[in-house]
């Protein structure tokens, strides 16, 4: 591989952003009308009337719309994006509520006014009459199903899904030991610093719509908006501006506002903009994570897992526009790097009267990882074995790759791990954190009256999910290279990373490469940015497209230089005979020659005009199977996902009095195949780890029993500041190439967050000698765990071996 792949190249995105010249959604459309939404104050209610007359009297108000005002296509529920045979009772929201509201924050009416202040004034005056209904809040209430979220969904059950590999019941029945665990993870959310936002301009003369939206999929929004507005795709373009973070929440589409704002812009003949505020983001965008699990595991004397049965309940909120992706990911990726003898997983996806649930970075994996890793630690505890030893005995071996887990993954394809070296990774993480020496540290700390603990968690992550991405590469006559790919960016440095790949392939300086993402005017076929897929999918696509452009450039240059293309190379933007710089012509000149001209628009173009003497007069200037220009268009569509992996280890200190948890060290070993830009990958890991810490110790969505989200602000929802994150995330890489794409790469975007809760739970458990079964764990939670534990007679935290696990005071280690 040539020079830029693997280099810590500084980002091309940064200069604009550092100077305040970014263009985020609310920075655009300063002339636009502003939309504000009337949102339900009730978690569950029937709407018995809406009076908009007072709102219409507010000066500056242009229009107020309710569901009644919408045309038939818009007065229907929004699409169920990812249907699944098990999703027997899929329900999606209306753009504006029709008769019933199912969560606090659901949009009921839209106000359009001269500015946002006036629009909000008017929204306050929209008089909605509600008949409150019983609210179903939390998984216990959803499972009990005393009340229903949707009248026509019995048991609040959107889906029941089962997958099994092997005969799990028989394997557990025959196992020497059986353990049962109940585990729980609470809700959190993506919570990007920039909320959602959308700006629409309808051009009545050309009958066309341009939409800017803070999205993770511009092509998805384009198709959905065209369908909902009854427009041809060619009448709609979607441009993704700078996006202030996504983390999953912006892959959902179309959000109600994404169809209502362009519809209003068309109705009113004026641009309209909606910018979500922070409270709206809490109550009207998506959450994730909330699940309850019951695990039954059978294992042998060495800790080998013979049978694993997982039954879980997933809180999908009021609606399921994104289908079953989150619980499917949980149910499949739960297995991590392990190979249980048999595995059965069954989940219910349940409605509650809360904000809908769609993927947040990790997308169900943090829960699965927490469940699996807690289970492995529980086995180690019951057998009084070192926790890493039990892991080692259950790992898939490198020689077993590709490894078929016998399940169907979220892409509808078999869950087959393509590559990885988990034993080597385990050795690396033990080495990095100093696993074997920890007992000494712990004893020394104990002698000072301090409690410290160590924990470790492993995961495997399916990345680079299909179906495809594409790219277009064109060499302009200036020699500059313009690249477009359809998926979008939210701060991951895609323009830099993709430019590195193209510069390498084409032999041009990186400064000459300019990459555009998420603009349907430039590239119309795309899926989106999710599932750690950009490097794999668009990275491969731009590479293949650049290779095509390179082949064309070599062919055209070979004709001009009267040599074989095989004798040519491209270096520093010059096409030359190998090793002979004097023979070269610039790539820009090659681009001129590739496009036979009638008219000379500048000096360079003269060379390609009809009297310049080039070409064979007996042949057409453009051969029948050829095209003008130095261009390449290519698509990459892998047979299935590629599986990255990692292991995190943490050392924590718990305060004996306040029960605060302090992270003393946090180590990461990460394998995403060869790294295109290590600086960017490490940045992704840092950010993911911070979100993992948030999910483990601080972040929860605090709903009261009436379905009010009582911590819907940054004052009360505790996102980590610098004071909460590890001082240094210590990172080591392993690079196991994937056989499934031309660069051998795997995705890296989500990895950092996945094992956070699992690793920290293990470390806290080790420090405290109390089993940790639910996350997040606040100081109050830990205090309560201590009190509950003190009331039990079993001794805690006594006489453990080095790196050893916690014996079970609750007696749940049951020799079956």
């Amino acid at each position, binding site marked *: 591989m040539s020079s830029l792949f693997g280099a810590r190249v*500084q*980002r091309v*995105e*940064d*200069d604009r*952003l*550092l*100077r*305040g*010249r*970014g*263009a*985020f959604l*609310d*920075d655009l459309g*300063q002339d636009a009308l502003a939309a504000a939404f009337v949102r339900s104050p009730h978690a569950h209610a029937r709407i018995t009337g809406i009076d908009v007359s007072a709102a219409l009297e507010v*000066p*500056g108000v242009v229009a107020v719309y309710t569901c009644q005002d919408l045309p038939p296509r818009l007065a229907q529920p929004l699409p169920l994006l990812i249907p699944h045979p098990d999703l027997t009772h899929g329900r999606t929201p209306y753009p504006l509520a029709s008769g019933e509201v199912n969560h606090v924050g659901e949009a009921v009416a839209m106000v359009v006014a*001269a*500015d946002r*202040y*006036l629009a909000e004034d008017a929204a306050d005056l929209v008089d909605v009459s509600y008949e409150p209904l019983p609210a179903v809040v939390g998984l216990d209430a959803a499972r009990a199903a005393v009340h229903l979220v949707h009248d026509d969904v019995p048991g609040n059950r959107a889906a029941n899904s089962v997958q099994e590999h092997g005969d799990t019941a028989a394997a557990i029945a025959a196992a020497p030991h059986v353990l049962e665990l109940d585990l729980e993870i609470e809700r959190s959310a993506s*919570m*990007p*610093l*920039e909320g959602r936002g959308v700006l629409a301009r309808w051009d009545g003369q050309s009958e066309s719509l341009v939409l800017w939206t803070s999205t993770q999929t511009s092509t998805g929004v384009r198709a959905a908006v065209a369908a909902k507005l009854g427009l041809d795709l060619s009448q709609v373009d979607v441009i993704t501006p*700078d*996006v*202030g*973070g996504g*983390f999953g929440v912006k892959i959902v589409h179309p959000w109600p506002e994404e169809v209502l704002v362009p519809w209003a812009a068309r109705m009113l003949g004026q641009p309209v903009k909606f910018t979500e*505020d*922070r409270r709206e983001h809490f109550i009207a965008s998506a959450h994730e994570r909330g699940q309850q699990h019951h695990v039954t595991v059978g294992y042998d004397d060495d800790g080998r897992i013979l049978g694993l049965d997982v039954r879980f309940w997933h809180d999908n909120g009021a609606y399921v526009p994104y289908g079953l992706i989150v619980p499917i990911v949980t149910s499949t990726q739960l297995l991590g790097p392990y190979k249980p003898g048999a595995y059965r997983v069954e989940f219910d996806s349940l409605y509650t009267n809360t904000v809908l649930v769609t993927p947040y970075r990790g997308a169900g994996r943090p829960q699965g990882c927490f469940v699996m890793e807690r289970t492995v630690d529980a086995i180690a505890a019951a057998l009084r074995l070192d926790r890493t030893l039990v892991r080692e005995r259950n790992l898939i071996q490198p020689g077993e790759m590709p490894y078929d887990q016998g399940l169907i993954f979220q892409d509808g394809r078999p869950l087959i791990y393509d590559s990885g070296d988990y034993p080597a990774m385990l050795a690396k993480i033990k080495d990095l954190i100093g696993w074997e020496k920890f007992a000494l540290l712990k004893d020394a700390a104990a002698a000072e009256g301090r409690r410290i603990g160590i924990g470790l968690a492993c995961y495997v992550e399916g990345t680079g999910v299909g179906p495809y991405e594409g790219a277009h590469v064109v060499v302009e006559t200036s020699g500059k290279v313009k690249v477009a790919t359809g998926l979008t960016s*939210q*701060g*991951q*440095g895609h323009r830099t990373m993709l430019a590195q790949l193209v510069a390498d392939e084409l032999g041009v300086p990186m400064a000459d490469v300019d990459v555009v993402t998420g603009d349907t005017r430039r590239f119309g076929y795309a899926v989106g940015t999710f599932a750690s897929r950009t490097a794999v999918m668009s990275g491969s696509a731009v590479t293949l497209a650049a290779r095509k452009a390179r082949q064309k450039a070599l062919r055209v240059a070979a004709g001009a230089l009267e040599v074989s293309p095989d004798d040519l190379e491209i270096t520093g933007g010059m096409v030359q005979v190998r090793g002979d710089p004097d023979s070269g012509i610039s790539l820009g000149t090659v681009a001129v020659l590739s496009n036979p001209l009638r008219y000379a628009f500048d000096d360079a173009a003269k060379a390609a005009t009809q009297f310049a003497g080039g070409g064979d007069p007996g042949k057409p200037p453009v051969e029948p199977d050829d095209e003008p220009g130095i261009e390449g268009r290519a698509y990459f569509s892998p047979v299935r996902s590629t599986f990255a992996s990692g292991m995190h280890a943490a050392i924590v200190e718990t305060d004996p009095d306040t029960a605060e948890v302090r992270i003393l060290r946090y180590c990461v070993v990460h394998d995403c195949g060869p790294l295109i830009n290590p*600086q*960017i990958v*490490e*940045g992704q890991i*840092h*950010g*993911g*780890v*911070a*979100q993992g810490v948030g999910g483990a110790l601080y972040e929860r969505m605090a709903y009261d029993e009436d379905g009010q989200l009582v911590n819907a*602000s*940054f*004052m009360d929802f505790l*996102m980590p*500041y*610098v*004071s909460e*994150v590890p*001082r*240094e*995330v210590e990172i080591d890489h392993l690079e196991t190439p994937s056989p499934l794409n031309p660069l051998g790469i795997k995705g890296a975007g989500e990895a*950092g967050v996945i094992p956070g809760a699992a690793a920290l739970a293990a470390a806290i458990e080790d420090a405290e000698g109390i089993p940790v079964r639910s996350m997040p764990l606040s100081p109050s939670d830990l205090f309560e765990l201590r009190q509950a534990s003190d009331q039990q007679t079993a001794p805690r935290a006594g006489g453990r071996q080095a790196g050893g696990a916690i014996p079970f005071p609750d007696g749940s280690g049951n020799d079956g």
Partner: protein
Amino acid sequence: MSAADELHGEELHEVRLTVNGAARTARVPARRLLSDCIRHDLRLTGTHVGCEHGVCGACTILLDGLPVRSCLLLAVSADGCDITTVEGLAETDGTLSAVQQAFFECHGLQCGFCTPGFLTTITAGLRVVPDPDDEQAREMIGGNLCRCTGYQNILASVHRAAEIIRERAASASAGRA
């Protein structure tokens, strides 16, 4: 500040500010937030609004040299003040300021939405504590939220910025000598 005409039934007030060294005037309703005035009246959209309740720090500007949250101030209350926004941080010749340069070198930003607030905060912070130790650097950025970076590279940027300021001062004094 002088009362003036109305717009949509709201009385407008003239606010005179010095923004990034230039005299600017805006006519705004009394309730207009300074953040909105800067972004939508003065069209300086580099200052971002992340929470509208003073917690995230994305909207931090320098008001008479001190970092403040522009979402917690009314524009009319800033009448007569000197304001520096992210657009005013670079040197007059366009060179990135030391803090901006440090963020570039250390990969101190990802999506860039919270970045203006960090840049202004650190710019002010390093004037008070020019050579921060790790604890002081953490304290300096302790009131700003970032969801992308995990702060590690922002902390590195604080230290690097302090270094660049010293390097630039040294080369300027060498240039004078």
